[in-house]
């Protein structure tokens, strides 16, 4: 018994960072997802000339918590003819896949669970590919036409677009020469460039494919409410439904993180080599301090005491975090010999990469997710055949060509001794050209196809005699 205890202790001692990260992911991601929903509501409201949630807490800040409570205490319905076991199992599977795949993502140089796993991003991609099971099984188990059509659409869509996403990632991997997350970021640091500039086509194909993979508008056909009510989630309610919901948002974080790591320089700050741009490091501290001051200013104007108190708490929190950021930054930037020996100074200094890395990484992921929201509120929805045509006729060939052109560019670099930049620009232009050809060709076919539908329509026997 003692041996077991000691084994556990030794285990914890060796792996405490990873364990902490894992616990944090499981605990914090649902909260973050809830607040992403709030941000989405607010962004949507802003784009639609409204205010969005304003009732629960100041500016609706407590809305996600109220939503969570509502979902948790809702009656848990299982339809009579549903397959009980699968109905229970499916949302759990979705959520598990989403959370597990976060294990290999590096939210900054420190914050990563599966640190030295040398398949790196492949792990993320592979495990998050388990998500569709949750959707397809849930749709099947609900025993409802809309659910099953939603599930089948969803699976078909995921399979189609995962290919594109995979090819896009391959083009990034080729440039980095490794699969390991931290090495990819290091490669971008060493190469002085984010890969989005070396292979823009790769990034944009990944962006589109990742929107489709997370079932977001304009690719949200599996849950198109005007057609399929809520798709595979139609019969779900309460806690199970919230699991699906969380999984969707967690998946957004995952694809955002993968895109950020591979194409947007991971946790690197913009222009990490340019010394005179060092002042951007002061941004997070200033930003947080500004939020804190704003909260203090607004606190007096809150209608209720509770709300004012809440504002004070938020302000305090912001200012404390801002102080931490500021201290760390000062410690990092300053070179006082007198302080070098101080233990706390060194501690602060050592916190710099973790803290700032996480900040920049999350900022980039947020920007990535913001694009998702922006597109969602701007674009109408595709029809299923159009979605498939876009996937198979344009994106897959384009991303395949992109892989080849990145390979050619690297070959130019390694065998002909070209610089990386001209090689990549040349091949990118070639890829873009191919892409334009593809789109033109496809437009022609699409027009022909829809014209044939129209012709069919006129041939369908008239319901009346002339």
């Amino acid at each position, binding site marked *: 018994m003692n041996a077991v205890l000691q084994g556990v202790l030794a285990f914890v001692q060796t792996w405490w960072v990873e364990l902490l990260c894992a616990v944090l992911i499981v605990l914090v991601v649902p909260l973050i997802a809830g607040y992403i929903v709030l941000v989405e509501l607010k962004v949507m409201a802003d784009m639609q000339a409204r205010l969005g949630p304003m009732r629960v807490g100041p500016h609706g800040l407590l809305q996600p918590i109220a939503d969570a409570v509502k979902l948790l205490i809702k009656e848990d319905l299982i339809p009579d003819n549903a397959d009980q076991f699968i109905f229970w*199992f499916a949302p759990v599977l979705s959520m598990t896949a989403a959370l597990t795949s976060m294990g290999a993502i590096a939210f900054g140089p420190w914050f990563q669970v599966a640190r030295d796993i040398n398949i790196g991003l492949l792990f993320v*991609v592979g495990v998050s590919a388990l998500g*569709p099971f949750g959707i397809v099984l849930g749709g099947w188990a609900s025993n409802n036409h809309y659910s099953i059509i939603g599930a*089948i659409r969803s699976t078909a869509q995921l399979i189609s677009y995962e290919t594109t996403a995979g090819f896009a990632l391959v083009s990034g991997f080729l440039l980095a020469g490794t699969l390991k997350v931290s090495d990819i970021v290091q490669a971008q640091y060493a190469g002085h460039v984010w890969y989005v500039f070396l292979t823009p086509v790769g990034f944009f194909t990944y962006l589109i494919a990742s929107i489709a993979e997370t079932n977001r508008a304009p690719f949200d056909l599996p849950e198109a409410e005007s057609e399929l009510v809520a798709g595979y989630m139609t019969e779900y309610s309460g806690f199970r439904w919230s699991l699906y919901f969380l999984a969707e948002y967690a998946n957004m974080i995952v694809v955002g993180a993968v895109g950020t790591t591979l194409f947007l320089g991971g946790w690197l700050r913009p222009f990490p080599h340019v010394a005179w741009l060092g002042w951007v490091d002061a941004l997070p501290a200033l930003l947080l301090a500004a939020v804190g001051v704003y909260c203090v200013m607004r606190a007096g104007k809150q209608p209720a005491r509770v709300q004012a108190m809440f504002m004070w708490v938020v302000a305090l929190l912001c200012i404390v975090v801002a102080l931490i950021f500021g201290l760390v930054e000062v410690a990092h930037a300053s070179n006082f010999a007198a302080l070098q020996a101080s233990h706390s100074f060194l501690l602060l200094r050592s916190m710099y990469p973790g803290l700032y890395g996480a900040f920049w990484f999350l900022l980039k992921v947020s920007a990535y997710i913001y694009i998702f929201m922006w597109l969602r509120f701007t674009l109408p929805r595709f029809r299923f055949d159009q979605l498939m045509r876009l996937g198979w006729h344009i994106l897959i060939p384009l991303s395949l060509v992109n892989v080849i052109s990145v390979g050619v560019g690297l070959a130019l670099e390694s065998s002909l001794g070209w610089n990386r930049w001209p090689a990549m620009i040349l091949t990118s232009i070639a890829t873009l050209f191919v892409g334009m050809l593809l789109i033109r060709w496809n437009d022609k076919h699409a027009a022909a196809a829809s014209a044939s539908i129209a012709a069919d329509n006129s041939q369908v026997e008239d319901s009346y005699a002339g």
Partner: protein
Amino acid sequence: MLDSIVFYFFAGIAVLSAALMVTRRNAIHSAVFLITTLLSTAGIFLQLRAEFLFIGQIILYVGGIMVLFIFVIMLVRLDVPLPQIRSRARQWVACIVALVVFLEAAFIVWMSQKVPGQGLLVLRAAPAEKLPPNTEDLGKSLFGAYLLPFEIASILLLVAMIGAVVMGKKRTDAP
């Protein structure tokens, strides 16, 4: 110690869900248990530090093949029970085949332990820290030493895919 706990955990799940998979009536349930079996096998690969094999197992078998399985199960009516094999003789044959396979495996394991270094299988695990990252090695040997078989396999798959497309394509001229 930890290694063996992890191993028995995954192995137990694998065996249990394999048994459940065979005994379920509902095809979807079987598929779900097959998925768990494959996943726990993948877990064992990971524990053996065969990371690429692990992710290959997940992406190919779980993410690819099983999705297709479930697709087919959902699209094809399985309400109608298939004519079950009820003959006694066949049950006996099945049992004997299973027994033979089991004995064969046991024999090989026994042999390999008895003659270290000569058997096909070395059960002594290499210490984890001495294992090199094997993803690069796998890639290098696939595109180096085994390039020809790899390309042949690729062409075979390509041919199979084209064949499937041709067969699946709707013939517009057909009646």
